[in-house]
């Protein structure tokens, strides 16, 4: 890598204490939703295939919401299965495996709330828009934002976080 690029790269790396990626995939590894934060565009494809491969190798027969963990260098990965959908979270620094576990718990909770149960792929796609809005309230610019179920529910309906 040329030097100037390196510096640029390092600059990004310094503020990387965030959830680098949120990725939803179906049972055969097609990506349903992905949100990258602070990951250079050229690395996204690699991440995507790494995560999908990880899921394909380890998620067979895993119970709903059982958390699996992996790490790559100083980056942590927590992933799980919910119905037909696998969910991956990648984080760094402050977002270590436990913080990601926390975040994934909130995300799965929100998805279950929206779909009414662990979703089939079909149901998931039907609720695609709402799930995106939820995600928007949970992870904001790579940082975990809202963690409370009711609060998220209110916010995606454009209601204030606490109501009177």
């Amino acid at each position: 890598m040329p030097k100037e690029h390196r510096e640029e790269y390092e600059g990004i790396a310094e503020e990387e204490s965030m959830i680098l990626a949120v990725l939803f995939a179906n049972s055969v590894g097609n990506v349903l939703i992905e949100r990258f934060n602070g990951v250079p565009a050229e690395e996204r494809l690699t991440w995507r295939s790494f995560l999908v491969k990880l899921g394909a190798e380890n998620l067979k027969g895993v119970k709903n919401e059982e958390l699996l963990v992996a790490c790559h260098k100083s980056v942590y990965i927590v992933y799980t299965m919910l119905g037909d959908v696998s969910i991956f979270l990648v984080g760094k620094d402050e977002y270590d495996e436990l913080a990601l576990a926390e975040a994934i718990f909130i995300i799965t909770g929100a998805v279950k709330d929206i779909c009414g149960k662990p979703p089939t792929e079909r149901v998931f796609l039907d609720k695609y828009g709402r799930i995106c809005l939820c995600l928007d309230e949970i992870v904001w610019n790579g940082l975990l934002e809202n963690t409370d179920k009711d609060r998220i529910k209110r916010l995606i309906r454009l209601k204030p976080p606490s109501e009177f």
Partner: protein
Amino acid sequence: SKIVAGRKLVGSIVRTSHDLSPSPVTDPSLAMAESSGKTLMDLISADPTPVPAQSTSSSSSSSTPSPAAASAASSMHQPMSTKTTLGEKKSKRATLMQIQSDTISVAKAALNPVKANIMPQRQRQRKKPVSYTQLARSIHELAATLDQKSSQKQLVNHVFPKLAVYNSVDPSLAPSLLMLNQQCEDRNVLRYVYYYLARILSDTGLSPGGGIPTPNWDALADIDAGGGVTRADVVPRIVNQLTSEASNSEVEFHARRLQALKALTYSPSENSELLSKLYEIVFGLLDKFKDYFPVPCRSTDYISCRFQVADVPHKRKKGVFGTKGGDKESIIRSNLQYAAMSALRRLPLDPGNPVFLHRAAQGVSFADPVAVRHSLEILAELAARDPYTVAMTLEKLASPAGALQDILHLHDVLARVALARLCHGISRARALDERPDIRAQFNSILYQLLLDPSERVCYEAILCILGKYDNTERHGMDERASGWYRLTREILKLPEATSKDKSNKAKRPQPLIKLVMRRLESSFRSFSRPVLHAAARVVQEMGKSRAAAFAMGLEDIDESVHVNAFSDALDDAETNDSSHPEGIRRTSSISAGPGRNETIASLLASLMEVVRTTVACECVYVRGMVVKALIWMQSPHESLDELKSIIASELSDPAWPASLVNDVLLTLHARFKATPDMAVILLEIARIFATKVPGKIDADVLQLLWKTCLVGAGPDGKHTALEAVTIVLDLPPPQPGSMSGLTSIDRVSASDPKSALALQKLVQAAVWFLGENANYAASEYAWESATPPGTALMMLDADKMVAAASSRNPTLAGALTRLQRCAFSGSWEVRIVAIQALTTIAIRSGEPFRLQIYEFLNTLAEGGVQSQLSEMHLSNGEDQGVSGTGLGVLITPMLKVLDEMYQGQDELIKEIRNHDNANKEWKDEELKKLYETHERLLDFVSLFCYIPRAKYLPLGPISAKLIDTYRTKHNITASSGSTDPTVVATGISDLIYESTQPAPAASNSSGLDDDLVNAWAANLGDDGLLGNNAPAMSRVNDFIAGGGTDAPDVDEENVFSRPSVGYDDMWAKTLLETNDQEEDDVRSGSSSPDSTGSVESSISSHFGGMNYPSLFSSKPSSSSQTTGKSGGSKYQSTYEGYSSPIREEPPPPYSYSEPQSRESFENPMAAGSGSRSYESDDEEPRKSTGTRFGTALYDFTAGGDDELNLTAEEELEIEYEVDGWFYVKKKRPGRDGKMAGLVPVLYVNQS
């Protein structure tokens, strides 16, 4: 049929939940679609072509494809879907093109009034497939017909959710979105509008959206000369509208205000105008609520503000516990506070701005837990830069009844994590040395977080206490060490305020170590993998801090201390001394109570027992982390067996990915850096990797580990370290299919061809390593050889020679034996490297080693070696030739160089004898001839390996005098390198030579082994030189610096090595700081290790670009590289027929102090070095201290102007010595009238 099928599939997927009556015809295809794993996204991306066609031809919508067609289509799609995302990649280009054309039509549609394209609503309800074009168009249409209820429904249920699939949003949608934003009342529609506006704002070509890739809209708009809409056109409008909304203070509007503010934070931070606007809004919001504070902020002075912040009444309780029905006003306030604080968190940090700090600190007392979290996070970041100011601002809050104490019970995990970081930052700040009270308060909060119910928080507190977050070089080591001290020595005592309503059990002061150990032990019993992983990581960090504590030699680190001793002592102190406001005190008295005999060591032991059992976890990553933790917790004195067997059995598991294996290898590296004493232990572990998973490990990294361990092992360990490397060579060749020895670490598990190949590569690397570094490990150098030159020639009997060799230097002899074995028993590739390695050793070693190798090579070339060696010299006399080894072409030139050297030596001895017998002086021509031979041989030898030119004597030690005579006469300075630090880096061996020769006294006095210092210097120099060029090095650096967020290696492609800082410097500083004296000595005359411009020595490129580390690797500058090559080419013609790679090791730059003498020598360097002036300190006259006296032993006739005629018995005053010459003064002028000049040392008898 494909088109129809595609349409069909899309149709089936995009059907919404409202579609309650799917026709029976579509059901099978739907099932097919699902079973084949097709999704909305890849369907659209795979074949979007039919979609626009479909949407425009509204009448054809009723035609439903037959089930047969659908099933055919789905089977057609089957192969693609199984390819997962990699297949997706291929289709992306097509998709992009498609979307591009779609987009153009969208842009056109947007330009032209939409009337003609309005679709009847009933058609929509038939769930037709949707394209981006259509979605975009619908938005325009529906925005125009917003007054109808159905339009809103359409938007919320169909259009907006589907648009979310795309990576980014077309800016041309912005006008319609803004219109919706202004006119629509429906909250659900509005929520989506904010979502999409935010996406338009955040889209900078690198949008975080993911999903189906969309084109660069701006570029498209440019292509479309009709005047497409670009981001630049719409962003100001969006920003304007959102900012005005964010400033709208109507109560009814405040939910929208939140979303507007949120959307605004998505815009990229380069927009300074927008930034200042945002700061204004946020500060305005926060400022507005200061009215509620009882003490108004009197001035901008933040110190006075802190009282006001501190005195906020505790209104949070309501918010914290989520009780509904607080008064409306305070709830709205809390909501807006949340919005402002969240936005502030996303804005760039503004350190040094008291207003910013004050606003952030305000948030600590907010009712909204998320706002509190953001506030703490900002404060923690600020505290990392300026702990003093932050501490002063928060002083009151940290008191036992302050707001920070309340956060301990706040129901937000990350808020408590941020609190831990904040407290750590302040309690460790040196800036607060004068305020121990403040530090103690924050420290107390930090320690209380150890009791936190959440593992995340508790671990964070542990890591903070361990000093993990000080990554700055030496300071970091200090922090780590004192972190370990704190953890093992301090106790937690809960302050009165919080313990009063708690159970009395918690009241008893607890030693931190006990709390932590208990917590970790229970964590290891958890079933949650993240918890196990995190716990193992914490143990690893503990190990790091412990290693640092041992490395720093902290006194009082004794682990057999009873932990309860401290708390007992505190109990005693408690009764008579309660004046301390802080809850933490230190004590060192040891008074173990009966029955409580837990020591730190025993606690650790029981923890490690639990850790070891965790190896049974089915998750490979957890196991990897456990192994790392075990490596870090391994102490140099404990038995290694358990760890070894754990690693061996772990590695046998094929589930381990290569990246993880290398991670563990890098951990070994890091461990070595922290504890150089463990070199040998670590090498033993590394050996397991080499034997167990040769296919998975990075040979470069392993090599680097070998090297650093070899260097770090010290003089006593060098032999052992080299042995550990060579053991790789002793392994039997892998037996395919033999899986019996799974847990035996002495067996190679290379059952598949790939790992067999990797193993061979590894052996190759080991052989090369051995050749390159055996001389270093054995401290045997030809130019320092103690053996008198004639001795070797007398030992022509091979047996005697071997015996002599091994008695003189077992290390080198052992290495030779192994290499010799490799030279005829390994694979062809290994044999080549072995021969090269042997030649290197031959050239670098003195006798009898050189002769031994010479003989070996000779026999090998002539044949019969195999039988000779294997049958104990019972050769049947059959000449097998070199065909048996296939090395003939390779050996010939190597033998030739040795031949020539021996020939030259023979001739020289003959000449010397002639001269002595005839008792005549050497003539200048004779000397010149000799010198030329010397130079020619030097060049020749340099082709094979690096040697220090200034010291190396291809004609044997006996030639030294004569060469020097000639040099002195002609003012040639033998130099090993230029002093220009930016240009040349000399060989390591020069460093070694220089320091051992001139300053033995100095190094002895310091009590430091100078050999070790050399080794460090060598390592340092080498590391610096390898620098950024060596991927292995940067990988190691990376790892140790904790970097590496780059994407993982999925298919063993190249890993992008990320640069990092600190490792080399840290290493250099921590180890070398104490011996500056020696370091200076060592470095003088050579370039600094920082000098870059390093070019990989060409030798390593023969191994496919692997950068083999070598203690000898000389890294000449690029210019000398080129000149070196030109020099090398001179010999290329002479030695054509090399089929093996020729080592073009460039000769180091040669220097002449007098340019006019150049012409007289044929020197390859002359051509390229014209522009540079070489200088040399190397051969600066070394003045001996004090004046000595002596008498001339013989008559001596001056050979040059600077030499002095001597008459035997003449008395002399010796001024200084230079390379075998004395500069002497006579008492009275001689016959020639000269008083002073140079005379050979041997001609003078010193008195």
